[in-house]
């Protein structure tokens, strides 16, 4: 009783009442009817009001963005006051990274430009740290990883990547933990910061790469900042969540003893969330590593450079070897933080092993000092021995890729043609070639019917109408030059839709969806967005097929799980560019290839969530079903899948977001639409505004799809995002 009444204070955390059978059935019928109307009307009116904008043309709003960037460039040139802090930050970051590089990578003031401490010193140091924080097994793993990177020929690039990742992650912690504390204390702060975090995670980096390089500098500093932006959100989110969900009894108990808010944070919430915060740190490190390739586009040091370069000359093998080094670093850092998290818990109470540990630490410490000294003064301990191991692997990979593509090329061409002709083209017709107002109405209907518990209050809808109208006004002011725009029906449409949605009892997803659609329309990229959306949906569908099948397979057997998981980890951390280029030999450049790439990238996370969902089905229920005599298929279809419905929707949610994050990369191999606009905006100054507009549209799509799926998942009783 304590809890249930105390909870009334925060109506937001109230679990939504599960929808009853009857209303569920009604919703599905309504959904079916809406789809039918969409298909029929869409077919009749195909090609009209599609808001198509040729690639070379810009709307007023987009030109305005371009000019804005031009003004920024002028401000930088004139040294305007508001540029100064950025310049100072950029210089400081550059100094930090450069100093570390002089210490561990290369110092131009030393003979042969060797580093102050060469490879032997670095290896000994890393092993020592790994042992101290994460134990013996991780120390051995680190040793193996570093030596492997060295033998592959990427010692210096590998250490550069470690340095940039490390500096970015340290800054993430310095910024992220206080931000998370603030968010956990103030719901206003939380409400204000969450959309910023959403944007940081979904906005394609290419859109802000150029301005970042302008403000903070090319190379080290730009690389750190771009890494920082993408890597910060997971840490903040997970930490804020952990701080907010510390056992309420303990919080109450310590409050009852007169703790101040600061004492609560320091002595109760932070220590009790340590494990989870380390999980957040782990996610942040992985995100930081995944930016290694992107940072290379503004001369960021590290493994991204050989990857991008190898791809310029279509050398898959070389790209693969450099990419594998990123994967190795990822494995090392992932396992190390995971172990460190477990150790942090045990450290305080370990007893017997402590002496052994101290001795080993001492020995490693002495070894590290000797190694550091040798690597400072002796060439052979300073410069990693040359090896053609990497080149050999690269050659093998090239040969193997050629053989493989030669063997299955016909089959993949058939898959490409069939899927494109029968599925993708139709889906694209429906979304991108129907009148925009029809599509908008359809999407809003889906959002209203699926995304929420159906408790739309009148006030909420009124606020929504007001907000949307404002957004439309602002967008309309700039988007005046979109061809074929008919403002009166548009206005009426928005208002009527919101009113109808509110009347029908639309749930929590309706409003964000309306705002996002308005934004997409407002930036003048409706048609491109719908093409991107159709690709995203198609890719997610395939991801979910994999997710449900492989996830179920893994969830039911620990052996399968153990066998498949490393492969999934590999796919998730290998820079996507690396497998995209060989894929060009299998599929012609085009949308299907972009989709295939997205599927490869997004499937692992969906599969993992689905597998966890299957596994977390109560063993008692499984036992009971077994006792009744269910066979394997009945167990899967009647017990395990229905009971993990929430997890499956969540898998779809993460799948969607991961697919969407590949839109830009996919455009490098023919994905076109928004992703292509983002890249060309980065590459061509006069298109900058259009690129940024496309990035905004991608962000809006992401947030929209996220809200719809999250609230759908919430209806099935699993509100949390991973």
């Amino acid at each position, binding site marked *: *009783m304590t809890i249930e*009444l105390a909870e009334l204070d925060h109506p937001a955390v109230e679990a939504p009442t599960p929808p009853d059978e009857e209303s569920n059935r009604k919703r599905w019928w309504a959904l079916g009817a809406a789809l039918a109307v969409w298909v029929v009307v869409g077919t009749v009116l195909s090609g009209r009001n599609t808001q198509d904008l040729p690639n070379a043309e810009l709307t007023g709003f987009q030109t305005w963005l371009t000019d804005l960037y031009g003004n920024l460039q002028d401000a930088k040139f004139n040294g305007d006051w508001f540029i100064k802090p950025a310049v100072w930050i950029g210089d400081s970051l550059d100094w930090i990274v450069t100093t570390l590089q002089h210490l561990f990578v290369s110092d131009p003031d030393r003979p042969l430009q060797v580093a102050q401490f060469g490879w032997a010193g670095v290896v000994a140091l890393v092993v020592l740290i790994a042992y101290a924080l994460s134990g013996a097994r991780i120390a051995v793993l680190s040793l193996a990883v570093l030596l492997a990177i060295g033998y592959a020929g990427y010692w210096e690039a590998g250490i550069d990547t470690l340095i940039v990742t490390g500096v970015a992650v340290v800054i993430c912690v310095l910024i992220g933990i206080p931000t998370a504390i603030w968010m956990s204390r103030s719901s206003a702060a939380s409400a204000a910061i969450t959309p910023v975090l959403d944007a940081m995670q979904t906005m394609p980096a290419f859109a802000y790469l150029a301005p970042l390089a302008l403000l903070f500098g090319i190379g080290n500093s730009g690389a750190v900042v771009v890494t920082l932006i993408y890597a910060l959100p997971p840490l903040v989110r997970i930490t804020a969540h952990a701080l907010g969900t510390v056992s309420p009894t303990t919080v109450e108990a310590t409050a*009852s*003893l007169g703790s101040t808010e600061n004492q609560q944070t320091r002595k109760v919430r932070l*220590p*009790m969330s340590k494990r989870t915060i380390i999980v957040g740190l782990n996610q942040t490190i992985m995100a930081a590593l995944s930016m290694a390739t992107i940072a290379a586009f503004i001369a960021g040091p590290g493994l991204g450079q050989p990857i991008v370069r190898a791809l310029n000359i279509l050398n898959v093998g070389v790209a693969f070897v450099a990419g594998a080094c990123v994967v190795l670093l990822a494995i090392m850092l992932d396992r190390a933080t995971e172990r460190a998290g477990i150790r942090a818990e045990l450290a305080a109470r370990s007893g017997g092993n402590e002496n052994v540990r101290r001795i080993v630490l001492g020995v490693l410490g002495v070894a590290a000092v000797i190694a550091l000294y040798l690597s400072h003064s002796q060439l052979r301990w300073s410069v990693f021995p040359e090896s053609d191991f990497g080149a050999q692997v690269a050659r093998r990979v090239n040969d193997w890729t050629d053989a493989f593509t030669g063997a299955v090329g016909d089959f993949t061409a058939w898959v490409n043609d069939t899927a494109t002709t029968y599925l993708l083209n139709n889906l694209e017709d429906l979304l991108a070639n129907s009148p925009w107002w029809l599509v908008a109405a359809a999407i809003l209907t889906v959002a209203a019917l699926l995304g929420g518990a159906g408790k739309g209050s009148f006030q909420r809808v009124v606020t929504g109408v007001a907000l949307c109208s404002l957004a439309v006004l602002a967008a309309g002011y700039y988007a005046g030059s979109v061809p074929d725009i008919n403002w009166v029906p548009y206005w009426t449409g928005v208002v009527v839709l919101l009113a109808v949605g509110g009347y029908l009892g639309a749930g929590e997803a309706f409003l964000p969806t309306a705002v996002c659609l308005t934004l997409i329309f407002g930036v003048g990229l409706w048609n491109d967005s719908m093409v991107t959306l159709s690709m995203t949906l198609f890719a997610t569908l395939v991801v979910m097929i994999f997710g449900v099948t492989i996830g179920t397979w893994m969830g039911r057997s620990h052996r399968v799980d153990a066998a498949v998981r490393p492969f999934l980890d590999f796919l998730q951390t290998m820079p996507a560019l690396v497998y995209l280029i060989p894929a060009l030999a299998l599929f012609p450049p085009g949308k299907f290839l972009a989709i295939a790439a997205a599927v490869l990238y997004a499937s692992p996370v969906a599969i993992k969530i689905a597998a966890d969902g299957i596994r977390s089905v109560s063993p008692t229920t499984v036992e009971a079903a077994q006792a009744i005599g269910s066979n394997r298929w009945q167990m899967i279809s009647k017990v395990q899948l229905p009971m993990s419905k929430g997890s499956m929707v969540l898998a779809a949610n993460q799948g969607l977001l991961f697919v969407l994050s590949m839109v830009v990369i996919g455009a490098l191999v023919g994905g076109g639409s928004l992703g292509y606009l983002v890249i060309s905006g980065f590459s061509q100054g006069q298109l900058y505004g259009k690129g940024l507009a496309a990035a905004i549209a991608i962000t809006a799509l992401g947030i929209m799809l996220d809200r719809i799926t999250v609230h759908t998942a919430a209806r099935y009783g699993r509100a949390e995002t991973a």
Partner: protein
Amino acid sequence: MTAMVDDAGAVASTNGQSALTVNSLWKVFGPRADKIVGSPEADLSRAELLAKTGCTAAVRDVSFDVAPGEVFVVMGLSGSGKSTLVRCLTRLIEPTAGQITIDGEEVVGMSDTRLRELRRHHVSMVFQHFGLLPHRKVIDNVGYGLEVRGESKTDRRARAQEMVDLVGLSGNENAYPDQLSGGMQQRVGLARALAVNPSVLLFDEPFSALDPLIRRDMQNEVIRLHHEVGKTMVFITHDLAEALKLGDRILIMRDGALVQMGTPAEVVATPADDYVRDFVSEVPRSHVLTLAWVMRPPRPDEALTGPEMTPDTIVRDAARRVIDAADPVKVVDNGELLGVVDQDDILRVIVAEETPS
């Protein structure tokens, strides 16, 4: 227990200074909750109020006094608002309306700093789910309250050790909470509350999560501690047996409102309504009622030669002697004859479970 009060209800007001006074306390959850108190809606039933305003009244217009050294039990089923009530006392939950006075100081409207002082020095609380810090040793958990009020490490270690010994956990001070059994964890919670040497101790269903046997031990422990340290205690429970065992007085709540307040015997003997009657129906009368409730004026034909007993003797304890005695037992207080009790009177209570009118 320390039956310092017999005259229910009038308790603290008679001696003028109470440890804790609560006056017309309200707690309403929901939108615009502060508008409910004093409006006509306040008289609606809980379900009607929720339907009409979206608000839930967890505590409705509750008043009581607790005397220094008294053990005051608040009892009710889950959802009756008792845990909310106890949280309002030190404003862990902010009350919607009403006054609370602790040690002569008004709690509602107190500044944050003053409130923190109150929590650090005057009132401490024991929780149903313990609320221990899993990352700290027992000794540091016990010393937490001293730590946050800024005492030096040596001082708080010494005091905490004392408390650990007091609750019978000697030797476990360096263990972590998850290495202890539930009963032992609650002893840590108890030691933590005692460590700050408060004048008032609040217990929120402290033993509900424990096994029956351990629960009995812990109840006895509380009785022992009460004898040793003599604190004022407010004890929340849903277990009537526990309430009767520990309480000097019992306050029974339903749907947030006070239903009855009185000594255990009063509650059992004269239930205020069917709700309470239902509650106490299973209680063996003889275990609760005192002779004061059973005695009657002597009949003219009776010989007043039987043994003498005091009116606060529990029926069960008196039974043997009453039955063995040839004549009715005289109930005497300060030399004054109040009434008599014979075998029939006793048997009616013990066997027939009747409550004398």
